[in-house]
């Protein structure tokens, strides 16, 4: 059931971007949507690295870092699939020094860092769905934004904070 749902979402996203391969006036639309997806992919890779680091150091309750890492990997795969065939150049990501510091300081420092990064990811998705031109990408990206919201709940719970703090969840931008 979950696999079918996921496959359907990835297919929808991929189909939407493939349709953008047509020449003509769609070029500008394709370009701006591609830029938004590239930014989201960078966010997802950062999140995946973050949970991978937590899993390696055993910072969270067993299984949680691995579960969240796997979610981020599936998000990244969906976005990569949507971007395939758009002529994009591969972009390398550099490990964050801030992540290294947070991991080295232990569980609570990591959780606070993870909450900030997840919140920035939610903000990035909120920005994307506001500005996307291709309507076929809206539901797949909305479902990923919802997933990142659930990650916020998990992290707040682990931190001992009130797990659901905002009735209108738009995340927080890196710089507001």
């Amino acid at each position, binding site marked *: 059931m979950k696999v079918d749902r996921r496959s359907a979402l990835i297919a929808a996203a991929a189909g939407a971007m493939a349709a953008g391969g047509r020449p003509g006036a769609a070029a500008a639309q394709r370009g701006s949507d591609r830029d938004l997806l590239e930014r989201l992919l960078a966010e997802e890779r950062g999140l995946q690295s973050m949970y991978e680091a937590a899993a390696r150091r055993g910072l969270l309750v067993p299984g949680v870092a691995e579960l969240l890492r796997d979610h981020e990997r599936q998000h990244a795969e969906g976005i990569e699939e949507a971007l395939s065939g758009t002529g994009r150049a591969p972009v390398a990501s550099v490990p964050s020094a801030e992540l290294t510091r947070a991991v080295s300081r232990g569980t609570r420092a990591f959780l606070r860092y993870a909450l900030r990064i997840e919140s920035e990811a939610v903000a990035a998705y909120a920005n994307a769905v506001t500005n996307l031109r291709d309507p076929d990408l809206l*539901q797949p990206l909305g479902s990923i934004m919802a997933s990142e919201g659930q990650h916020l709940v998990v992290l707040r719970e682990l931190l001992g904070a009130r797990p659901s703090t905002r009735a209108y969840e738009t995340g927080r931008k890196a710089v507001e």
Partner: protein
Amino acid sequence: MSGGLTRRSAIAVAAVTVSSCGGGQDPPSGRGARPGSGVGVLNSVLALEHASLAAYAALAERLARPERSRAQEIVEQEREHVRRLSDLIEGLGGTPVAGRATRDYAPSFPRLRDAGDALLLAHDIEERQVRAYLEALVKLPAGPLRRSAAALATSEAEHLALVQGLRGEQMAQAAFVTGT
């Protein structure tokens, strides 16, 4: 399994009951809101929010602390959703669909024997609301209304995580939260 379907149907029926008195399609031109403005879509999700609030009032009676306090936090946020949706609809020149008294929804709710039934109903409500907001996202014009729908879908997904936690399940179960 059939119980779940019955519960989901109950919420949908309750929402339709309310939306039939004002929600659904965008109103014809000349009545304030422009056709295609999104008022009809927003009123449909507002009707679902009203029905969900009534369902939470019923299911909270079957919960003890600390589940009941957690449900109350969700209810406060659902009320905030109603306020936000109503403001958006009025800002577009429309009239927000009104909720009804809890007793008017009650006949369409399933029988809740215990806390397990109550949490299952809460789970179905949140799944349904996530789905409704994601569907609204596609129907709304580009810009801030879409941002609002996505923010509300994410809030409902957070409630879903809370309810899953209360049921002793993993809070974040799937990489793609689509609702049902």
